[in-house]
C-alpha cells in the first residue's frame, strides 16, 4: 500500500515538468477547455444585459429596441439639465458618504474587538451583528418605518442614512476583520511593549496597517448605500435618492433613454471605484506579506 503511494507520487513528480509545459502551450481539450467554455458563458450571461445600457444610451431613439437608429449624446445632455435628477444624485452622495464614514467608524472598533480580545459569547455576538445581512430588506424596511412612525421621527435623508448604516456595518466589519486578522498581532504588542498605551498603539500601528481595509470598507459601504432601493423607498421623505428617482422615471417612456445614460454613468463610476479599492487592497496585502517573511 505504502509502496504504491510512494510510486504514484514519484511518477507525478517525474511528470510535473510536462504539465507545466502544456500549460504554456494552451488549454488542453481534456482538462481546462470545458471550464473555459463555462467561464465564457457565465461572463456573457452576467455582463451582456448590463452592456445594453451604455449601448442604448447612445442610440438616437426614445424606443429601446433594435435596430439602432444613430449615435447621439442627447440623453447625456438631458441628464445634466435635469435639476431633479441632479438633486437626487446629490442626496445619494450625501447619504452614501455619511453611511460610509459611520459604518466604517463603527466597523473598525467592532472588528478590533472581535479579532483582538477574548470576549465571552463572541460567536453569538458576531452572528447577531451579521443578522441584517440575512433579514430580507422589505421586512427591515417595514420594521424601520413602523418604528419611525411610533417614535415620531420625520422621514428624511437622515432616516435613510441610519437604515443604510444598519445594513452596511456588517460589511464594513467583515472587510476590516479580514484586514486585522491579516497582520501579526505581535505588532500591536510590540507597540505596547515599547511604551505606547492602547489608544496610541491604535493610532500609530493599527490604523496605518488597517488603512487599505478602511478605504475598501468606505468604498464598499458607499456603494451599498448608493444603490440600495427598498429601505430608501420605505424611509424616504420629500427628498429622494437616485435609485428612487430612477424608479419614478420609469413611468414616463420618453425619459427611459435618459435613465439608461444615467445607468451607464453609474456603471462606469462603480467600475472605477471597485477597481481602485481592489488595487489598494492588493497593494496593502503585498506590503503585509513582505513583512511576514
Amino acid at each position, binding site marked *: 500500500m505504502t509502496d504504491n503511494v510512494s510510486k504514484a507520487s514519484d511518477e507525478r513528480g517525474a511528470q510535473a515538468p510536462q504539465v507545466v509545459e502544456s500549460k504554456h502551450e494552451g488549454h488542453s481539450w481534456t482538462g481546462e477547455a470545458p471550464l473555459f467554455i463555462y467561464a465564457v458563458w457565465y461572463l456573457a450571461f452576467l455582463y451582456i444585459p448590463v452592456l445594453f445600457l451604455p449601448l442604448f444610451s447612445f442610440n438616437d431613439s426614445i424606443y429601446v429596441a433594435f435596430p439602432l437608429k444613430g449615435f447621439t449624446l442627447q440623453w447625456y445632455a438631458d441628464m445634466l439639465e435635469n435639476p431633479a435628477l441632479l438633486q437626487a444624485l446629490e442626496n445619494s452622495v450625501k447619504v452614501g458618504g455619511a453611511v460610509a464614514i459611520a459604518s466604517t467608524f463603527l466597523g473598525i472598533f467592532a472588528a478590533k474587538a472581535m479579532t483582538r480580545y477574548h470576549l465571552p459569547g463572541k460567536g453569538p455576538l458576531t452572528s447577531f451583528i451579521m443578522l441584517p445581512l440575512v433579514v430580507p430588506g422589505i421586512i427591515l424596511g417595514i420594521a424601520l418605518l413602523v418604528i419611525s412612525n411610533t417614535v415620531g421621527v420625520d422621514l428624511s435623508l437622515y432616516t435613510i442614512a441610519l437604515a443604510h448604516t444598519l445594513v452596511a456595518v456588517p460589511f464594513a466589519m467583515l472587510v476590516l476583520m479580514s484586514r486585522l486578522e491579516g*497582520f501579526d498581532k505581535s*505588532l500591536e504588542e510590540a507597540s*505596547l*511593549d515599547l*511604551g505606547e498605551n492602547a489608544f496610541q498603539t491604535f493610532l500609530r500601528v493599527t490604523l496605518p496597517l488597517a488603512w487599505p481595509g478602511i478605504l475598501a470598507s468606505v468604498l464598499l459601504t458607499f456603494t451599498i448605500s448608493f444603490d440600495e432601493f427598498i429601505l430608501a423607498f420605505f424611509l424616504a421623505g420629500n427628498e429622494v435618492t437616485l435609485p428612487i428617482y430612477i424608479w419614478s422615471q420609469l413611468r414616463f417612456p420618453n425619459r427611459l433613454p435618459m435613465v439608461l445614460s444615467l445607468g451607464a454613468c453609474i456603471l462606469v463610476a462603480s467600475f472605477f471605484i471597485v477597481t481602485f479599492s481592489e488595487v489598494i487592497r492588493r497593494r496593502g496585502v503585498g506590503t503585509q506579506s513582505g*513583512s511576514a517573511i
Partner: protein
Amino acid sequence: MARDDYISIRNTSKHFGSVKAVDNISFNIQQGEFFSLLGASGCGKTTLLRMLAGFEQPTLGNIYIDGQPQAGVPPHLRPVNMVFQSYAIFPHLNVHKNIAYGMRKSGLSKAEVDKKVDEMLELIKLPGYGKRGAHQLSGGQRQRIALARALIKQPKVLLLDEPLGALDKKLREQMQLELRALQRDVGITFVFVTHDQEEAMTMSDRIAVMSMGKVLQIDSPTRLYEVPKVKEVADFIGTINFFEGDIKGKEGNATIVATAGLGNVHSTASGDEAPTSGKTTVAIRPEKFNITFQQPNVANNVVEGVLQAAAYLGDRSHYYVKVNGREEPIAVASQNAQRQMQAVEADNQEKVWLTWDEDSVLLLNK
C-alpha cells in the same frame, strides 16, 4: 552591586480555563544574568515570559522586577522590553523609525534620538540602514533591528521569545555568539525563551528547564548536563542511557548498583539528591563510554556487547551496542581524534567492550 533577586517570581501560576500553563513557580534571576527558559512547546515558558512582559497577568502569585511588584502593571509601563519571535518589525515604518518608535516619550530632542538610533545601528552592525524599508530586510537583519528597538529603551530586563528560531543554522550559530557578546557588552539582564537545548547551553549563565508548567531544575549549563537532578532533565538535555538499578551498598567512595545490562556498576558521581539505597536509575551519557575491540584489562565498570549499528559523523562516530539483559542497545559516542580511513562495519556482529569511569555514572531517583 548585582542583586540576586533582580527578577523575583513568587508562587506564580497562570491558568487558562482548566489548563495550568504555569503551575506555582518560584525562582529568582540575578541582575546582569543571561537566563534561559528551556522546554518543549507547551511547557509554559512563553506564558511565563509574557507574564514578565505584562501581556498576561498571573492567576496567582506575583512577579517583582528590581523590587517592584508587577501585578496589574500594563506592558507599556513596565521596565522591560521584548524581542518577539516574529520580530514584529513595523512594516509601515523604515528602520530608523522602527528603532526610534519607543523614544517618543523619552523627553529627548529629535537630534538626540537620531544620534542614539545611529549608535544602535552601529551596535548591531547595520550602520547606514536607517532609510531602508522594513520589507527590504533579511531575517537576520530584522532580528537585529528588533533587538536595537528594544535595547534603545535601556530596559532593566530584555525578554527574548525564541528570536533565533526563524534563522538558518549557520546564521543562528553566529547570532548566538553575537547575542551573548552583546549581552556582556550592555550588561542588561536577558531572559531568553527557547526549545533548543544547544542554543540555551551556548548562551546562558543559568537555565531553567521547564515541563508541564513546572520548573524541573535551574542550573548552569554544565551542571544541567553533568548533574541532572531528575530523569526528565537528563533526558531533555543531550542524549543519555538509562538503566534500572538496585543499590547494593558502598565500597570506599563508590556506590555499588546492580543493573540490568551493565552488571554491578561502581559510581562515585555526587548528585545533590542522589539516592543512597533502594531502587535507582543509573544514567550514563554516550560519550562517557570507551569502546574497544579487544577485551580491556579492567575489573570494574566493563561490559561485553555486540556492535549493532554504527554511524560515522566526521568529528565523531555513534555506535549502538547490544548487551545482555537490556532490550535497547546502548548509545555510545566516540570522538574521532585519530584519522580513521576504514569505516567500522556493524554488519558482522562484532564483539566490543565498553568501559566507563566511576564518576561519570549518575544515580537518579526513579
